[in-house]
């Protein structure tokens, strides 16, 4: 079987919430051994953010946590405890990468900054992914994905246009975008290390990565002083486009007519009057006729009709219908992994589909502290007595201390 690109790479993963775990889920699927480190006193909040009602050990039974942390190992360590810090520094020499998404000052406050890590392993690669980076006037700001989206410039570009209101994307968009970039940073730093023998200290600001996805707006701003214009679902580069309600509960279809010819062909297929008076109201007319024509039609039928005719169309797949999409099924995009506490569900594979190595999720997300013995005794060679001391001191554990909601 062909080897995965990151086979042989070991990652000490201090990340929590979504951005960092999104990055390390990719790294794990690319073959890296990812050791997720949480404190019994400060566990990954995602475990307990939306507890399933009435389950034992909700921190082990969260679909939110489990979706983004599969293929990883779980080691508990309270880094704020001297023994936890010491144990972590014994782990670092076995690792190629340390990755964290704490607020900018936290790692240094734990006395685990790059210079300390480098003493433990001279060619260590540290990836930090604070919201605004480790330096600069805004480094102390706290932020989650939607905040990052506002501060990146992107939210200012999204809106219906008739009310002047900017909109957030419906997910914490800054998180996975930063996660994808952080995974790329790891590979670039590994390439650099292979060439120079030196590690790297990567300072990734989530806000900056997101600003990188709207580069042309900075060109317009710097050359012509332009501010974003809200265009709703329209796009001036095409003849017309929109999102139209179809039959069914909240079912919608996005359609682009790149040219007048595509509009006329679609109109013929849908039995719509293609004639337009010419002028600025044409687009409104197209929208009105499309809305009327699609209101009672099945979105999948219309999608297939238009796409089959070479006209760009896309169902607004929702969080249920996307799991039923026949194309993603044919692509073997979803996997179901057995989990000791939960029934199986469809989880997405990485978008980095290496056709030959064919990366495949291997194992469910780890239970809290599941790999403590394997790593502490197996990898670090601690004695049973030393592990027991860590347990006695509360440095490691098999359950969070005082878990509440959030």
């Amino acid at each position, binding site marked *: 079987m*062909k*080897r995965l*690109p*990151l086979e042989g790479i070991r990652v000490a993963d201090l990340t929590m919430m979504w951005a960092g775990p999104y990055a390390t889920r990719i790294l794990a699927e690319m073959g890296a051994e990812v050791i997720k480190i949480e404190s019994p006193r400060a566990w990954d909040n995602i475990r307990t953010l939306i507890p399933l009602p009435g389950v034992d050990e909700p921190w082990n039974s969260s*679909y939110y946590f489990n979706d983004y942390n599969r293929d990883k190992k779980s080691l508990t360590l309270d880094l704020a405890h001297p023994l936890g810090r010491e144990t972590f520094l014994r782990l670092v020499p076995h690792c190629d990468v340390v990755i964290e998404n704490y607020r900018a000052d936290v790692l240094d406050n734990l006395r685990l900054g790059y210079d300390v890590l480098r003493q433990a392993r001279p060619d260590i690669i540290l990836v930090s992914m604070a919201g605004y980076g480790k*330096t*600069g006037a*805004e480094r102390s700001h706290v932020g*989650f*994905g*939607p905040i990052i989206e*506002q*501060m990146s*410039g*992107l939210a*200012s570009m*999204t*809106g*219906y246009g008739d009310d002047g209101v*900017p909109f957030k*994307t*419906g997910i914490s968009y800054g998180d996975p975008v930063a996660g994808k970039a952080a995974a*790329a940073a790891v590979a670039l*730093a*590994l390439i650099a290390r292979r*060439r120079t023998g030196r590690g790297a200290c990567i*300072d*990734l*600001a989530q806000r*900056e990565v997101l600003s990188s996805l*709207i*580069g042309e*707006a*900075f*060109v317009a*701003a710097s*050359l012509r002083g332009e501010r974003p214009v809200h265009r*709703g*679902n329209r796009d001036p580069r095409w003849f017309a486009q929109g*999102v*139209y309600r179809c039959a069914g509960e909240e079912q919608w279809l996005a359609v682009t007519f790149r040219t007048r010819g595509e509009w006329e062909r679609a109109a013929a297929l849908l039995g719509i009057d293609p004639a337009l008076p010419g002028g600025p109201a044409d687009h409104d007319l197209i929208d009105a006729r499309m809305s009327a024509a699609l209101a009672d039609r099945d979105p999948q039928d219309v999608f297939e009709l238009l796409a089959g005719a070479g*006209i*760009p169309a*896309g169902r*607004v*797949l*929702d*969080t249920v219908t*996307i*799991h039923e999409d026949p194309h993603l099924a*044919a692509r073997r*995009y979803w996997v179901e992994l057995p989990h000791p506490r939960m029934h199986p569900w469809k*989880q997405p594979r990485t978008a*980095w*589909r*290496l*056709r*030959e190595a064919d990366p495949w999720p291997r194992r469910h997300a780890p239970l809290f502290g599941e790999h403590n013995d394997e790593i502490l005794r197996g990898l670090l060679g601690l004695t049973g007595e030393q592990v027991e001391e860590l347990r006695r001191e509360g440095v490691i554990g098999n359950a969070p201390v005082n878990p*509440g*909601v959030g």
Partner: protein
Amino acid sequence: MEASPSLPLDGVRVLEIGGGISAAFAARWLAGFGADVVRVEPDVESLSPDEAVYLLPGKRRVRADAAELAALARAADIIIEDGPPGVLAARGLDPAALRDERPALVVVSITPFGQDGPYAACPATNITAFAMGGIMSLTGMHQREPLVTGGSQALYLGGLDAAGAAVTAYFGALVHGEGDWVDISLQECMAGMLELYGPRGAYEGAVSIRSGNHVRALWGLYPCADGYAGVCALERQVPALFSLIGDPELDEPRFRDPLERPNHDDELQAKLYAWFGERTKAELLELGVRHRVPIGAVVTPLELLDNPALLERGFFDTVDTPAGQARIPGRPFLGLGWRPGALADPVPAAQILPRWSPRP
């Protein structure tokens, strides 16, 4: 910290074919990190002039006929392309065949739906791809139609994933001797980033409906005195936020108790509308940082060009254009060598080929 680290991709040859936003963005990052990027000019340029100013600096642009294209492909370490499935093969550059000839080669193909499957041949634009990726169903007001996020996010996400996959597969080729053919589907780039809503739909079969700017009162965006600002408070940050607002009613159990609070969300939203409405973005940001409450403000790219933190961190590259000097997002992160690029005019491939000898 080391002074000016070397470029991680120095000497790596990247061939960009297709030249849409996706391939151009992926190749832009590779160029910045030192790769020698040759962009094969498409017959019809699909980038807008502003997109070209952002995405083309640091690349060599060539006009190539079929034979020259084949010669460039034989000399490349990484090929990034965003044409429809089969187009490369039709030009005599079947990725599988190229990989057979040269196992270390990395090919990254970016398409709306991937190389195979029932929709593989379907065309897409940014908005139709965004719709099929699921994020759109969650974006916008539930009283109105779903809303596409600004810019060309579906296309950029394809480029972002392509860049990461390209360098990861290239690292694999360095270590194991074998590259790969990476099949990036825009739909899959997004279908795996649906936060808790995707897993919830899969696990519980429960659909999540778009919630506009307020997932809940404490996770929302509000008008303020000079624009819009937002708050995202986790439970541990709620006490600090409430004391900041200073309304004694917020001490009552219906707001304090995380299980009670959702039943009074409208009332809480009203309080936040009032509180935000009286303050400017600058005041709100200052309060947020001082009290460790996650608060943000909606800023435009124009405002960000003067942002002190971004300037201090050296985020922007400058590019000379016929219309003046543009400032564009530069290195995506600090810590690895990055080289700002200049815009170049297209040249005949014959000028490049002598320096691009075939790779063994």
